[in-house]
């Protein structure tokens, strides 16, 4: 039975509204998690292709977060950005694009290296955002189901006992219990360190 069928079954069951909603929320979260993970995979592949065809000689930093810092640093430490900084000009990544365009148009500067780093940074930043969204969704679902207010860093081992209690009290069934544990493990594993370029 797939998740959609499970949701339909729960919808049409005689379960209490609160239990129904909790189980459906977990199943919808699982669907969302799978969707985001698939997106992440394809976005990471897109980044690898972009990086390999960029002509940059160094190797990819296997950890996505570290790679993001590296590229961000390369942008901020570039001569162009240092010049902006010396003029007390602050910029978002999109504003930086405009400054570069103006500099190329008005002064004939060649800023291809900065533009390349911006392009790579945007792809990586999008991946990182999507990943952070996924973590946030999982934490939010756990909080709603447990009626708690956990943060990413405040999740402790007691949470496993709380989730087990939900199963014992028939608030969750086996499937939704396993999915909730899956979400918990995903968060606890500090997955950001695991997202790697294969």
């Amino acid at each position, binding site marked *: 039975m797939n998740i*959609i069928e499970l*949701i*339909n079954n729960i*919808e049409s069951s005689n379960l*209490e*509204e*609160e239990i129904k*909603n*909790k189980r*459906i*929320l977990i199943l*919808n*979260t699982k*669907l*969302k998690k799978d*969707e985001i993970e698939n997106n992440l995979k394809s976005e990471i592949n897109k980044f690898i292709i972009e990086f390999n065809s960029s002509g940059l*000689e*160094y*190797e990819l*930093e296997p950890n996505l977060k*570290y790679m993001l*810092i*590296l590229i*961000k*640093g390369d*942008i*901020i*430490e570039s001569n162009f950005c240092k010049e902006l900084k010396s003029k007390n000009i*602050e*910029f*978002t*990544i999109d504003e*930086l694009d405009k400054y570069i365009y103006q500099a190329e148009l008005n002064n004939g500067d060649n800023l291809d290296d900065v533009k390349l780093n911006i392009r790579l940074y945007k792809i990586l930043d999008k991946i990182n*955002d999507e990943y*952070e*969204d996924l973590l*946030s*969704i999982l*934490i*939010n*679902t756990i*909080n*709603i189901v447990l009626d708690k207010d956990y*943060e990413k860093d405040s999740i402790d081992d007691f949470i496993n006992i709380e989730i087990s209690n939900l199963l014992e009290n028939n608030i969750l069934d086996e499937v939704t219990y396993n999915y909730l544990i899956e979400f918990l493990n995903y968060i606890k594993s500090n997955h950001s360190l695991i997202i790697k370029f294969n």
Partner: protein
Amino acid sequence: MNNDTKNKLIRDYAYNLVNQMKQQYGNIIKDNQIDEIISIYNNSDKEIKEIQKEIYDLLEDFIRKYLEEIQKNNDEITKIQIENQDQLMQIDQQIENIPDVSQSTNIKKIAKVIQMLNPNADIRIGNPAMMSDANNKIFSSIPIENIKLPKGFEYNDKNGITNKYKTGSGVYTSLEVASLNGVNQSMLMPKSEQLKSSNENIVNKETVQNTNQQVTKNIKSEHKNISKVPSITSQRKKQKNSKKINPMKMTNIESKMYPLLNEKRKTKLKQKTQTKTTVMTYKKPKNPMTNQTTSSKGFINLIFASLILLTIVFILFILNK
């Protein structure tokens, strides 16, 4: 008393009476109307007192009818005012119940208002868990031309239903409108889910007037209405919003990590270059006698050995024959 004196007395009496009436009721009788009355009694044979009484009765009757007419008109005006007031109250109530979403980018709220404005249509939104563009699309059972839009919104082919250029913050929404026909129900948000927030508002209004016990009851029922749709935490929402506005800067940790990562990258690059050079210059050692690599010599020897073996086998075969 001659007729002229009598006529004058009647005229004076009538005008005095009318002037008194005018003071009390305003200019309700015109001069030509008074003259008409006076003319009835011109050169009359009746006693002056009798004439005065008739004029008085006539004017009194006139005033009574006038007042009755006024009252009737007032009643009519009051009735119309009451009816209008009912209508105005109904309109006010409708306006009060329809939330102002002109500045909103929340598709749920906007869709809910569109549904309220178009009770004959079925307005639905997609399930974000099932549809990647659910936040930018609404589904309607009637064509867009017939949809009444909320205040501050318009429809155009480029942006769909939009409040572009009409929001104070500049942040606007654009909603594509799709037909509801043939759309799988599982792809859409349940109708009850869409309208839940409006019901909650009503509950919230009621709880203000209710007793503590009822408030507790409402809180409990609200607790049961857990969202079935996964969403990010409010903290994450704030984080994302601030990221859009804040300038690009390295955080403390990033500032510390960047030099280390940069160093690591340089070292790796250096190692890579060295390895590359070694590989390019590497040559297999040659046999000083034959000036050939050992491996190629071995290969030739093997071919020679095979040829000799083949020749022997061939000779043996011929001898046997």
